[in-house]
């Protein structure tokens, strides 16, 4: 995804290491790097989360707005994803350089969340047919250190978990138009049920039938193709997509998807327990970027 120049010798080193079951940083093929998550950094947003996966840094913010619904689904709220690859992540993202990556990431997240099993959007309805809550999820890529898809999806799930939407009350009707009052009380909020929200797991095929999870930028240069799988906590696969100019044999793809499902469920469990632990920590000091 980012332009790193590796010599042939370095590529051979990485590939041969994977064949022996060892990666350059000592991980096994299904190990993730160290993950740090913090929610609630941005006060101006309804929900926010910052995720650091080694050198990849992503900031996700969620803002709620009220808009008319889509005509085909008058009782369902909407979830909109926008990705911005900032120029400080990689110099090639300057100006409009990061648009391709941003488009593929946002469309993947939209597909993964499009299934009604993932998020119950009927809870986001305010007045059926007239007003629904639209959640704008903005993903800011601050540093690109490999494996953007997984990191962004973890950030989205954490930010949605931490989202607090003020309750909206209908106070009256004035000439056909409804009047609303938005609650000022910070504890009078609605929360989202993200128990079924999916995350993405990236499997990069390095050579023949061997895949690795959570690739570093150097490994991404060596692998011809990767498959991104969206997994829910129940083990359902909501979307898959292949990226890169390469091919998979059917067996490799099936093994990759199965291991992504198992790995995904484990990650979901740990993520949820950590998010609940963070929320219950009453004296939490928000560290932010300092």
């Amino acid at each position, binding site marked *: 995804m980012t332009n790193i120049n590796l010599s042939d010798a370095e590529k051979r080193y990485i590939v041969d290491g994977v064949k022996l079951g060892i990666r350059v940083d000592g991980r096994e093929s299904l190990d993730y790097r160290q993950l740090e998550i913090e929610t609630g950094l*941005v*006060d*101006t*947003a309804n929900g*926010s989360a910052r995720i650091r996966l080694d*050198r990849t*840094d992503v*900031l996700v*913010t969620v*803002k709620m*707005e009220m808009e008319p619904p889509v005509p085909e689904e008058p009782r369902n709220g909407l979830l909109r994803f*926008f990705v*911005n690859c*900032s*120029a*400080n*992540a*990689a*110099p090639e993202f*300057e*100006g409009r350089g990061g648009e391709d990556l941003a488009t593929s990431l946002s469309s993947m997240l939209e597909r993964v969340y499009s299934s009604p099993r993932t998020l119950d959007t009927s809870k986001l309805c305010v007045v059926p047919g007239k007003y629904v809550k639209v959640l*704008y999820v*903005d993903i*800011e890529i*601050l*540093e*690109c*250190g490999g494996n953007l898809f997984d990191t962004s999806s973890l950030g989205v799930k954490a930010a949605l978990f931490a989202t607090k939407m003020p309750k909206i009350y209908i106070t009256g009707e004035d000439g056909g138009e409804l009047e609303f009052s938005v609650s000022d009380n910070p504890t009078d909020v609605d929360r989202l049920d993200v128990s079924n929200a999916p995350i993405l797991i990236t499997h990069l095929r390095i050579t023949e039938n061997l895949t690795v999870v959570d690739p570093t930028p150097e490994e991404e240069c060596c692998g011809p193709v990767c498959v991104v799988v969206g997994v829910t906590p129940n083990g359902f696969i909501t979307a898959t997509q292949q990226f890169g100019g390469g091919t998979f044999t059917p067996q490799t793809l099936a093994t990759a998807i199965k291991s992504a499902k198992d790995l995904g469920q484990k990650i979901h469990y740990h993520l949820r327990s950590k998010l609940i632990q963070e929320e219950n920590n009453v004296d939490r000091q928000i560290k*932010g*970027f*300092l």
Partner: protein
Amino acid sequence: MDIISPEGLRQDGRTATCLRTISCRLGLYDRPNGSAYIEMGNTKVLAAVYGPREVRSLSKQQLDDCVIQCQVSRIAACQGERVRRPMDPRTRAMSLQIAGVFQGAIRKSKYPGSQIDIYVQVLQADGGVMSACINASTLALIHAGVELVDYVVSCTASMYKQTAIIDVTNQETMNGCELTISLLPNKELIVSLDTSHTIHQEQFEPVMELAMTGCQQVYESMQSEVESYLRDKHAIMSHR
């Protein structure tokens, strides 16, 4: 609502000549040559510097001079209302202005034929955004090891009913002018000065003087952070 209450306090409890709390940090990221983060009250800005490096487009290369470019971008949630376009014309104008500020502060003769890029990300905007961007860029350039003539520090000030107020928030500048000044503190030279809205000629001098004293205070905070960073990295060997 009054910006200054009858007791002389502003909405966040400060007096007219009190700056907001400044916290900064150098060296957050590894990929850029230099990176820094600054918080001035609720305004939070991240800056990254790439360079000096080879010029990206040969048509812009100047063999006896250094090309300095800046790009400022705001995240969607930086204000109360969601920002739909991270780079609108006003932000782009700010980028050009900041590049101009550093044209005067970077020792360009040391980097002929090269390019230095400054990328600034506004995470939260609550008044004094341009100041915070300039301060963060200075710290990022210091972290990158780019030679500077001096620190470039910036501060804002305004006037409310005959009282000059320093380091204004968004709410305080709704109906009043916002004067942003950036200067080289040790040489006491002004690098940039711009105001928004109208200000009376007689009120101009006191507001500018107040902003300049504010800059000196910002300089002290930034300098102490840079020194503690260098001490942690064992770059300062001598004792003072």
